[in-house]
């Protein structure tokens, strides 16, 4: 049967589109953008974790010398924020692995770690705000009673 006949039914090309990227590949432009943000992600994560560690150390030393409720609260908050900072360095590590070996599962890993970072940051912020509100409330009661 002749397929080029004028009266033949039209046929769709069922094979893969030659212009499309190979299955499982990561868009090169997206890979470029992710690679460009990796250094900053790592820097912010590292500085954040070190800053939190320094604050916790300093406040723990001060708290040991002279117990103070406010110092304890700031100490807890600084310790809380160290976790998201550490997660940020893990996102940077996942991006590094993606740039070395671009694949769909690796991209999913990057996105998963990013989601984990934002989720933990959200929980941490909510917890810090909760602690702040509770401390302000009890300090108000304490100041009113004295």
């Amino acid at each position, binding site marked *: 049967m002749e397929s080029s006949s004028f009266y033949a039914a039209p046929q769709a090309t069922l094979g893969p589109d030659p212009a499309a990227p190979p299955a499982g*590949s990561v*868009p090169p432009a997206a890979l470029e953008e992710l690679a460009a943000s990796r250094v900053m*992600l790592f820097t912010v994560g590292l500085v954040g974790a070190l800053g939190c560690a320094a604050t916790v150390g300093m406040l723990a030393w001060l708290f040991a010398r002279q117990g103070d409720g406010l110092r304890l609260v700031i100490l807890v908050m600084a310790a809380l924020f160290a976790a998201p900072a550490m997660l940020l360095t893990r996102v940077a590590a996942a991006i590094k692995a993606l740039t070395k070996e671009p694949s769909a599962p690796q991209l999913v890993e990057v996105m998963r770690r990013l989601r984990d970072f934002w989720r933990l940051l959200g929980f941490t912020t909510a917890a810090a705000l909760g602690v702040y509100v509770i401390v302000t409330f009890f300090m108000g009661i304490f100041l009113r009673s004295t």
Partner: protein
Amino acid sequence: MSDSVAVSHVVVALIRETRGWLRFFAVVTLILFLWLVQSEGPVLLTGIFGRASLEHALTLVTCVTLGVLSLLSWRQASTTSRFLAAPTEELFVTVTSDMRRFWRIGGPLAVCTMAATLTAYLFHLSKS
């Protein structure tokens, strides 16, 4: 949706979850920014027009950081919404591009604020 496996349903689902947390972060930073402007407004004005002390500088830096982070995260959430409405590779690249912008601008600001807060605290300790 694009034929590429890269922008898969798993990626779309993860980005959808991330968008919710991004919005939460944007709203919280906006509230903190507004609260800081409202409560520390006179201090900020003195810092800008008068003699700026370390406290003024710290309040200003924190205020700017909160405002910028709120704006950038809201923008990132909006781009993510556009991607989720029509998940194409092109929009996925836009999402990653917005993410890069967020970290390129917000990253140094966050680092500066952290450094300024620590410095101010150390300065306060050395004086007391």
